[in-house]
């Protein structure tokens, strides 16, 4: 039973979508970022990461 619960918990953790690091005002929408860059003249800082 304990093993089964652990396995379910592990699977749930693996499926949980990863979130950006805390702190900066992140966007995940490339189109919105591009518009904001053109509107404001600010560069985009892109942080590329993946599931490990």
């Amino acid at each position: 039973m304990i093993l089964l619960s652990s396995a379910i918990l592990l699977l749930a953790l693996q499926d949980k979508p990863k979130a950006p690091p805390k702190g900066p005002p992140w966007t995940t929408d490339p189109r919105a970022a591009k518009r904001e860059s053109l509107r404001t003249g600010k560069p985009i800082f892109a942080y590329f990461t993946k599931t490990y």
Partner: protein
Amino acid sequence: MPVEGQLLPSEELKPLYEKVIWLWVYRSFKKDPGDLAAERVMNRCGASTYPQLLFIDGPSWTVLVECGRSVAEFIKSAENAIARMKKPDPAVERLLVKMNRAKTLLEGGKKDDAAAILSEFKKNDPCEFFAEARELLGLVKPASEEDLADPDADRRADALDLCLAKRVPITKGAMALLSDPDGDVRLRAVAYVAAVAPDRLDFKTLLADPMDGVKFAVLDAGKSAPDPKLAKAGVDAWRDLDAGKIRSGNPNVLRMKLAEILGLSGGEDAVPILEAFASRHEFLNGTTGACVRSLGQLGKRKVKGAAASLINCFPPAVTPEMEKAKHATHCINLARTVHAALQDACGESPSPFPPAWKEDDRKQILEAWTRHVK
């Protein structure tokens, strides 16, 4: 410095929160819409490794600065990127106001009024308002071959994927997408043309593409069968890379892929290029082994000078310094690779590879191979 946990939550970056736009691009590899959007951004920026930190010019997705991993490097990179940006485009603000008005009308159930506004967005706007308007109006249909000429890059990319899946014969329109301004479209165009009509790829132009992904895709596609035209373009690309005429964010990977192509399809002109790199004896660099193996392949095809060149590629004997740095195994492995490549080239070996790689072992093997090759 680790990116997450140390660099990105650093308090010292707070003054930059409002000076740059923070885009988090996460690949889940689930092939869902979010993952596809992330893949497209990566293709457009030419990003190919993780984690990667880049400052980008939003309108064009051009990389302005590759960012260092320390707080000081990050701040310096950000300041450099900010200084390189062009002035804002006032038209975007107007278009944004218009789009928000249309969305408010849609939310309030006033579909006709919203549609009247949304239909005013022009095809050539720089910020995809036209594409978003079409989505809001429910006019987006499944991708078709006609979308190869769509103003929206995502639609052109979808159309190319569809043409590839259905093996649609190449059209003039599809060929034109090999030089599309959008990097993701170019990459998918290469995949499509390489699969359906590889003889129509202009290797010289594609190997000079500013995006590594395009160069890598051309070389990966070329591994399926020997192609002397690709090898000729590969020799030129290697020389141009050395001369700084071709830019690459990952020149080592590019050389490794070029080496593989030269081994498969190269001629006499590939030998000095591969030898020059391999005889640097960089046993910690995978490209060295790739060059050695390719020289072995050339030797097997009896390309002049290939077998003899391999003798210069044996690394020096193992030294106490190498052992101390735990590099001895890498050095011996490279020596073994050179020995195997010579065996490939000559079809036989004058002597087995020695159990150790000390000065005497090296001397004996070199003498044996030199006599044999001559």
